[in-house]
């Protein structure tokens, strides 16, 4: 299945749940609502023609307007790649864990939680991962984060 065929397939079968975003990136990027996340993930994994069985990456983003959580998935047997993201506002920084679909999400979700402060529901192992054990300075990857010894790059 080529990239265009994959796009056609997804637009045909998942048109009500996945919205195509024309980002100009190499991989296809879709947007999924927070309510549909688990359902879509499970369907993509179990679809006989797609078999997205591998979670390449999972990460957060702060765009100064809202939060995003971006999932990069791949199919080892069908040789496909796909990205999709979930967008939600600052005051609802909470998302379902996708561990039951891709167990590899565990560490990525811990990282997203500690760096962005996005709560992961039903995670079960939300402990500090990359930050020091005694970290108490908030969520450093947020754009408005600040700390006493944090030196911001001066405007040039």
């Amino acid at each position, binding site marked *: 299945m080529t990239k265009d065929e994959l796009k056609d397939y997804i637009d045909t079968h998942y048109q009500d749940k996945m919205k195509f975003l024309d980002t100009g990136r190499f991989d296809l990027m879709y947007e999924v609502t927070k309510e549909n996340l688990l359902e879509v993930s499970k369907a993509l994994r179990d679809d006989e023609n797609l078999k997205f069985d591998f979670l390449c990456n999972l990460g957060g983003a702060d765009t100064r307007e809202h939060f995003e959580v971006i999932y990069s998935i791949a199919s080892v047997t069908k040789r496909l790649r796909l990205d999709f993201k979930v967008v939600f506002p600052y005051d609802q920084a909470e998302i379902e864990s996708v561990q039951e679909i891709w167990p590899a999400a565990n560490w990525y979700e811990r990282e997203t939680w500690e760096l962005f402060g996005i709560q992961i529901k039903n995670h079960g192992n939300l402990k500090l991962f990359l930050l*020091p054990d005694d970290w108490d300075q908030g969520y*450093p990857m947020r754009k408005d*984060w600040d*700390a006493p*010894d944090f030196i911001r790059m001066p405007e040039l």
Partner: protein
Amino acid sequence: MGIIKKLPYYSEKVPGGSIVATQLEAVLNFAQAKSLWYLLFGTACCAIELMCTGASRYDFDRLGMIFRASPRQADLIIAAGTITKKMAPRLKRLYDQMAEPRYVLAMGGCTIKGGPFYYDSYSVEKGIDHIIPVDIYVPGCPPRPESLMEGCLHLQEKIKKQKLNNWQEK
């Protein structure tokens, strides 16, 4: 009498005899400066230059410097690479495990003042002198092996000036 030729500053010939008069301080410092065993502690790209310095082209061994994998056997800790805030307590612990007298060489910009991670970084310690006392700073990003060897030679000079009565305090 080869040793006397090699130690002109530390010894003097006694006429007609084979006795060498020198200072205990000088001998101890000489011995210590010429066998600085360093701890293998490379945390980033500086470690590549450290490896290159230890390999046959630059041959750290001719300064009497051999790497040790255990802090108990090391005299010198070459902090080669970025020290993150998570790594800082480990560095402190390794330093504490080393036997006195012990020396620290901060290699590269990261260990001196955060280096390229000075701005906009939440995770990098802005200089290891916040954690442990540093004897020699070797700037560079990363420093070439020549710089590192120069730093070690300076450290040897520093060791040779130690006084016996404040040996522990350096």
